[in-house]
C-alpha cells in the first residue's frame, strides 16, 4: 500500500466526515436557537418539556442515540423501513448538537443585562429592533468562545458514525488493519482531524478578533 493510495482512501472517508460535520452544523444552529427559545419560554409546560428533552439528550451518549435512531423505528413498528445509515447519523447528530447549542444560546441571551433592553425600550424601539440592533451582536460576541469549543468537539465526534457502519475516515483507516495488517493509516487519519481543527481554530480566532472592538 503506497502512501498516496492510503491518502486517497482516507480522503474518501474524510468527505463523509466533512459532510456529517457541515450538515450537522448548519442544521443544529437554527434548531438550537428554537430550542433555546423553548427553554426560556415563560409558558411553564413548554420550558419544562424543552429542558427535560435537553437533559435526556445531553445525559445519554451520542453513540447510543445514533443506534436508537437507526434501529429504533424498525424495532417498534413492523413495516417501517427506517432511515438510511447516513440519515440516521445526521438526525442523531443534529438533535444532539442542537441541544448543546441551545444551552450556549440560552446562556448568551440570558447573560445580557436587562439595562440593555430597557435602554432600547425607553428610546421607543420595538422588540424586534432591540433584538436585532442591540442584543444580537452582544450575544454573538459572548457565544463565540463556547461555540468554537463545541464545534471543534463535533469534528471529532463524527467518528462515532462508524458504530452503524457509516464509512467516515476512522472506519476507512481501520479497514487497513483487517485487510492489509497496517495500523499506520489509522494513526495518519489523526492528521486529517488535526489540520481541520487547526483551520477552524484560525477561523474562530479571526471572528473573535473582528468582534474585539467592543466589550460586553
Amino acid at each position, binding site marked *: 500500500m503506497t502512501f498516496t493510495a492510503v491518502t486517497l482512501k482516507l480522503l474518501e472517508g474524510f468527505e463523509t466526515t466533512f459532510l456529517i460535520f457541515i450538515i450537522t452544523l448548519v442544521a443544529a444552529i437554527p434548531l438550537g436557537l428554537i430550542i433555546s427559545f423553548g427553554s426560556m419560554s415563560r409558558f411553564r409546560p413548554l420550558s419544562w418539556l424543552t429542558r427535560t428533552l435537553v437533559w435526556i439528550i445531553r445525559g445519554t451518549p451520542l453513540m447510543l442515540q445514533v443506534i436508537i435512531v437507526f434501529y429504533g423505528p424498525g424495532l417498534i413498528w413492523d413495516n417501517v423501513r427506517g432511515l438510511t445509515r447516513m440519515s440516521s447519523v445526521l438526525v442523531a447528530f443534529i438533535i444532539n448538537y442542537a441541544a448543546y447549542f441551545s444551552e450556549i444560546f440560552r446562556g448568551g441571551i440570558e447573560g445580557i443585562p436587562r439595562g440593555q433592553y430597557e435602554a432600547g425600550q425607553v*428610546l421607543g424601539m420595538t422588540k424586534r429592533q432591540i433584538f436585532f440592533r442591540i442584543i444580537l451582536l452582544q450575544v454573538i460576541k459572548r457565544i463565540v468562545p463556547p461555540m468554537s469549543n463545541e464545534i471543534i468537539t463535533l469534528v471529532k465526534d463524527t467518528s462515532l458514525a462508524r458504530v452503524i457502519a457509516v464509512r467516515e475516515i476512522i472506519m476507512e483507516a481501520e479497514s487497513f488493519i483487517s485487510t492489509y495488517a497496517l495500523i499506520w493509516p489509522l494513526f495518519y487519519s489523526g492528521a486529517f482531524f488535526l489540520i481541520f481543527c487547526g483551520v477552524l481554530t484560525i477561523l474562530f480566532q479571526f471572528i473573535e478578533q473582528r468582534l474585539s472592538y467592543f466589550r460586553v
Partner: protein
Amino acid sequence: MSVLEVSNLQKSFGSTDVLKNINFSLERGEILSIIGSSGSGKTTLLRCLNFLETPDEGIISCNGDILFDSSNPKTLTETEIRKNRLHFGLVFQSFNLFPQYTAMKNVMLAKELLAKGRPDYKSNKKAILTEIENEAKALLAQVGLSDKLSNYPHELSGGQQQRVAIARALALNPEILCFDEPTSALDPELTGEVLKVIKQLADRHTTMIIVTHEMQFAREVSTKVLFMDDGYVVEYDTPEEVFGNPKEERTIRFLERYSNGLE
C-alpha cells in the same frame, strides 16, 4: 396645563406595596428632585413614568393627554406604550450605553430607527441622516464630548459614558427628562462633570425629574422637591421649604440622618 400629572398611582410587587397613592403634577420647565432612603419607591416611580413597570392603579397624563389609565385597557397595548415612552427620556444609574456602537451612534440610533417610519424617508434619506448626524454632534458638544464622537463606551470614563447617555436621551426631544440616580455609580471625582451637565440643562429650563442622593445638588438645582418614604409622598414643596422648613416628622428625621452622614 401641567406637563405631567400623576394621580393615585399604585404599584406592588407580590405582597409588597411599593407605591401607595402617589399624586403630583409638574409644570413645563420645572425641575423636580425626588429624594428619600433606599427602598422608598423613588426608582419604581420613575420606572412607572417611563413604562418600564406597569402601575397597578392610577392615571398618568402628559399635557392633558392620558398616557396611562389602569381602568382603560386601550392605554396598555405594546404600540401605545412605545409611543408614550417618547414623552419621557431616561438616564440610568448604570448608563446602559450600547457597547457595540460609538458615542455618536449611541446618540443617533433611536432617531435613525424612528426616521425609517417617516413617509418621506426613502426620497429624502440622505438629508434626514445628515440632519440626525448634525444634531447628534451638537448634543455631544453640549455635554462636552466633541472629541469622543468615535469612541466606544469601554474607552470612556464613567462620567463620560453618563454624559453620552444624557445626549442619547436628549436626542429624541423628550418633554420630560428623567434621571435615576445619575451619579450613584460614579467615582466621587466624576460626579461633578455629570452634575454640571444637568445644571446646564436646568439653566435652559429643561423639564426634569431627578432621583438623587445628592442633597446639596437637589437643593441648588430643583424648583420642586418630593420626599418619599415607604411608598408615600410625604412632602412635596419648593426646595427652600423641604430642606429649610420641613413640616413632616419623617422628612426631618431623614434630613437629619443625611446631614449626619448616615444615608
